[in-house]
Each structure stands twice: as structure tokens, then as C-alpha cells.
């Protein structure tokens, strides 16, 4: 039986998740991730997401520095980065980020630098939004776990 606080937090978490799904920020792949989490790896989702954040930030930095070059022409490199970004984003279920990446890739295939820059901005925005929301989610989860954990010792008393 969860503590009172834990219940509320659980509801919060669900609500947030539902919201994110509804917004298209996350998709069912994220659910798959959650299903992969179990007793043997109870922090799997947060670990993967942290890896994702870490990698993504590097990718974004690379992309920005590439596009900001004065003599930029290496669209191939952009596409390589984007491929990785698409792969990782889709793997964790970050739907909107993936969409933007794909748009970005299309612009890059057309050698459209302006389009790429726009897409990059959008991508950064989406990514920040996702990161904030996921952080929020993990925070709630941690609090919930704490609240639930606190409950148990009391039961024995």
C-alpha cells in the first residue's frame, strides 16, 4: 500500500506521461523502455535516458558548430550526425525530436543551409523541452519511490 504522498505522486507521474504522449513528445517506444525495466534493472529507463541526453548534447553541439562554420559545405557529416540522432531518439521514443531530425535531414539532403539552421533551432528547442519533461518525470518517480519506501518501515512498527 502506497503512502498517501506516493499515491499523489503516482497520479502526477501518470498525468505527466499521458500529457507527453498526447503531445506527441513521447511514443510507444518509451513504453517499451519502461517494460524493459524490472527488478533486475530498476533504473533502466533513467539510465538510458541519461545516456541519450549525454549523447544528444554532443550531437547538437557538433551540429551547431558545423552549421555555424563560415565555409560550411559538409552536409554529409550533418547527415551522419543526424542519423545517429534519429536512431537514438527513436529508440527512446522521443517522437517529436525524431520528427524534427528527419526534417533536418531532408533539408540537409537538399543542401539547404537555411533550412538546416531553422531545423537545428527547432531541434534544440524540442530537445530542451523533452529533457525538461523527462527530468520532471524522473523527479516525480524518485519522490514516489521515496514516499513508498518510507512507508514500509512504518508498517513494521
Amino acid at each position, binding site marked *: 500500500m502506497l503512502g498517501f504522498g506516493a499515491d499523489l505522486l503516482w497520479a502526477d507521474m501518470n498525468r505527466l506521461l499521458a500529457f507527453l504522449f498526447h503531445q506527441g513528445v513521447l511514443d510507444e517506444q518509451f513504453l517499451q523502455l519502461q517494460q524493459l525495466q524490472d527488478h533486475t*534493472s530498476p533504473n533502466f529507463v533513467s539510465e538510458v535516458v541519461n545516456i541519450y541526453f549525454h549523447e544528444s548534447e554532443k550531437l547538437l553541439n557538433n551540429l551547431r558548430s558545423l552549421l555555424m562554420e563560415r565555409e560550411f559545405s559538409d552536409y554529409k557529416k550533418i547527415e551522419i550526425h543526424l542519423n545517429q540522432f534519429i536512431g537514438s531518439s527513436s*529508440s527512446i521514443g522521443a517522437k517529436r525530436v525524431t520528427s524534427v531530425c528527419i526534417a533536418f535531414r531532408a*533539408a540537409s539532403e537538399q543542401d539547404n543551409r537555411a533550412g538546416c539552421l531553422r531545423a537545428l533551432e527547432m531541434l534544440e528547442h524540442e530537445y530542451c523541452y523533452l529533457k525538461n519533461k523527462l527530468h520532471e518525470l524522473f523527479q516525480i518517480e524518485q519522490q514516489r519511490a521515496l514516499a513508498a519506501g518510507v512507508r514500509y518501515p512504518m508498517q513494521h512498527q
Partner: protein
Amino acid sequence: MEQSSMNSGEFPAGLRVLVVDDDVTTLKIIERMSVRCHYCVTTCSEATAALKILRERKGCFDVVLSDVHMPDMDGYKLLEHVGLEMDLPVIMMSVDDRTSTVMKGIRHGACDYFIKPVRLEELRNIWQHVARKFLNESKEHDNSSSREDNDRNNISSAAGATKGIVKEQKKRSNLKDEEDVELENDDPSTSKKPRVVWSVELHQQFVSAVNQLGLDKAVPKKILELMNVPGLTRENVASHLQKFRLYLKRLSGVAQQQNEMLNTVPGTIESKLAAAERYIQTVAASGYVSPETLAALHAELLGHPVTNIVPTVDRTTLMQAFEQEPKHSGADDHDVASGQPLAKYPSNIVNNFPQSILKVDNSSLGYGAWPPSDTLGSVSRGSLGVPNNNMVIDILQHHQKHQHQQKQQKSPIHDQNQSINVQPSCLVVPAQSSDTFQEVKSVASVNKDCSFSRNAIIDYSQQSQKSNISSSTSQYLGRDTKSTSISPLMSSFSVGSSNSNIQQIQNSTSTFGAARPLPSLLPMTFRQVPYDIKSSDSLDQVCLRNPRFVGKGNHISSFENEIESSASDFSHMKVFVACNGNTVKEEPKEEPNFIRYSNVNHPVLYNYPSHDHSSAST
């Protein structure tokens, strides 16, 4: 090849997978999924490193999953290398789902192509590629040796893929010494059984029994009863029946091809001959006719009593009937349209024999000669009580006439001499069991829903950013059409509470411990250690032993003995056990380009602080 994972307790559990991807996120996810599937997984983020691993530990992997686009080496190159050097099945992965890319993968020899994100269900299926490759190889190997080896070594086992594969592998390794090959039947648990020789007489009895019962109703038990042969087991009959059915199916397929080739007057003899001709064309495609056979043909045609040569004939053709393809392409291969179906024969065989009812549309099949049904208007079942021999002889003779007219001199026998490869005493072992294990599933299936319509419409309506998005931004219709395991968005997900997994892991790990030799690969797991820093420190020293481990907080926890003895210690460490249970923990901080695989060859005991048994991983 050393012990493969297929010898372990429950294939495909224990399948040894190497995952190569420069994207660490995907790597971790696939790793986790693989563990969930009870595979032994090794991850690698660099193709060059992966190749190194593969080369160093040949025979330690069953399948390779590789990304297509990698910075240091093209995925296709890796694919080629692996195919050439190690001949392992390779599955490509990518976000790129363009047909051309997928095609390129296929052309380079990929077994399969996954579109990212890879789903657990897709990962569960990869074992089929291992099985398929393995069985194909054993067949090739067999075919390169003598025919007799073929008969002996290709056993018919209708059991599930697991056990059959195990037996196949044993045979494969014993290929050179042909002594200890056993004829496996439906029941693989019986170790050695006396070999069953399906002689002509025996087969005749079998056929008449089947005739009596009707092919649809012919069950091994009843056939066995009807045959009333001492020493014959139900399993023998069952496997023979399967072969028979397959053969019929093949025939009926071939017959349709050859319908136009033969104008058959639906008279009894004519149709018999025609049908028989078709049969012989499929069977003796390459002119495998022994001199005895042809002599018998002559004898029969001339109305002479059938001599004891006939059994040879029958056995020959029976043998050939069960052979897969005419390896020694005879003179008139081109004449025989059945070359095709013959070659396809093995690949058409469905894995689960007992369940598959081969649809032999054989309402009017006369089993005596196994002619295809559709052209035999007047041939009624059972009316071909003609002994098999006669029919066969007719067939052969007919065939010979048709096929070798131009070459015919005195007797067609001479032409065939060089291509004769019949051993009269050879055993008609119901043929290759390897056939039975081919998965029919499509190989190069692009595991992505093609229902995506990427006509590029991005729905930006939801977004609230400072978007001055012009229409130049290409658009993309997102994944809404994806039909993956969609759970309702509002469903309450379970945040880490599936006990059943524990049990599975427990069971499988104990299996692994028993079956697997130690120096093999180890699954990689990524795991932070939120709780006990102490234990991580104590483990560090072990990790330092192998400088390949990069990153802090690496843990190598050995598996077999320790797990059993100190199960409790592991629980809280969240060390999940897969395969041989050596897990490498890392805190993913630095750059992802390191090889994550450990090479611990002996168990090491660690002092974990004792914890509760609640989430014991063994």
C-alpha cells in the same frame, strides 16, 4: 566450431549476440532487450573493435547485429568481413528504411534488416537466422561428401528445432567419422536407435497402409498397426510419413509445371505413364539410373518377371525421391523442369512437422506410384495396387526414352554409366532431417511497418515554440501509423515490477551455468550503482586487471558458482544475470567509444554486502 549456444539448455536462450552500433543509446537498449530474451549479449560501439572481438573469439558468437552507418567502418564492410571470415549471420539495423538501403544490405549478405527503433519482438526472432544458417551449412557439408554420408548423416528428426539442431550439430562435427550417426526420430530423447532401413518391401507396406487409410487419415500409429512390422516404431513411421508427404507435395508442384509438357490421354496406362514420367523427371532428373534399373526397366516392359534387380530400382528412385537435389547435374538437367522444385525442396519444408499438414490435393492419388493427382482422372486410389516396382520401372523406361532419345544407342544404359551413383545396398533413410528445420519465415524481412507514409508532413500544430517555420521545412507524417505494440497512451505502466522476469532469468541462468563452458562471452550491462559504492570499489580492482574496461565503477561479477552460493549478494546490486553472468557495469560518463566486453575466464568471488533475497537474480 566449439559448443554453440544451441547446445545449451533451451535454445534460443543463451544465443550469443554481438551488437555493434555507434549509438550508445541504442546499444544499451538492445542490450537490455537481449538480456530480456535471455541472450548472451556483447556490445561494441566500434566496428573495428567488433571485428577484433570476432576474430579473437571465433566460435564464440552466434549472430551479429550491426548498424549500417558507423563512423569508423561502413556497416556493409563489416558485414562482408564477418561473412567471409566468420560466416556468422549478420543482421543490419538502421533508421534508414529506404528500399535501396535495405536492398544493399541484402546484397551484401545480411540475414535480416531491422529498422530502428528495434523492438523486442524483432529481437526475439533473430535465432531463426542462426538456425537457418547452421542447417544450411550442414546440408552443404553433407552434400559435398559422398552420397552415403548423406543418407546416414542427414537424419530425420521431426522434433522441435531445439533438439534437432543439437543433433545436427553433433552430426556435423562427426561428419568425417560416420560411425556413430544415429537415426533420430520424433523422439530425440532416445539416444541410440537401430537404423531403420526402408527397403522396398517395407516401403511398399507403408504405402499400402497409407493407401488403405487414406493419406489424410494416415497417422503413424495406424500405419504402424497396419504394417505390422516387428521392430518398427511409431517414430520411424512418422518420420517416413513426413518425408512421403513432402515428396508428394513436391511432386504435385512439379506436376503442375509439367502439365503442358505432357499431353496425357486419361487412359489408365497412359496417365500412369505420364504421371510416372513426371515423377521420374523429378526424381531422376540428372539421369541417376543404375544399369540394374534400366535392365529392370527393359525386363518389365517386355513383360518379364521382375527380378531382384527391381528392388534396387525402387530403392534408387526412392532414394532419389528423398534426396534433395541432384547434386551431380546429369546430362539432361535442362530438360527437367523439376530441377527447380528439387532445389527448392529443402527450403520449403516447414519447421514443425507434426503440425503441418501438407496439402497434397490427392483425392485420386494412387500411392503406388505417387503420381500427382490432378491429371489422374482414371487412376483411382488403391487401384494402383501395382507394385511400386513396376510403376517405377515404367517410369524409368519412359523417362529414359524421352530424355535420352538423341543419345540413345543400343541401350540407354550406357549413357548413364558415368552418372550412376547408386549403391544398391545403401539405406533409404528418410532423408535429411535438416530439411525439417528450415524456418519458413521470410528471411530478409524488413521489420518495419511499411504503412508509414513518409510523404513528409510534419504536424507542427502542437508546438508552441517561436516558430517562424516556413513551408520550406519538409514535413513528415509521424509514427502514428506504426502498428507496433501500441498500448493505450493512458494505460498505467508498470514501473519496474515484473516478477516473472526474475524467474525466467533465474531459470535460464541456472541452465547457462550448467551448460556453458566458461571462457565465453559475457553480456554487457550498463548499470549505475545507486546504492553501494563500497562494493563498487572492491570490484574495481578486478576490473583493472583487464585494461580494456573503460570507465569507472566497472563490475565484473562472475556467475556460476557464486550466484548459486551467494544469490543474496547480488540482489541488491541489481546485477542481472544473463548467460554466463559476467556483467560489466559502467557509469557512462566519458565518450562512448570503448569496447565493452570482459574477458574473465574464471569466476571471481566478491564480497557484496549481504542483502535481502527479494530480488535475487538467480
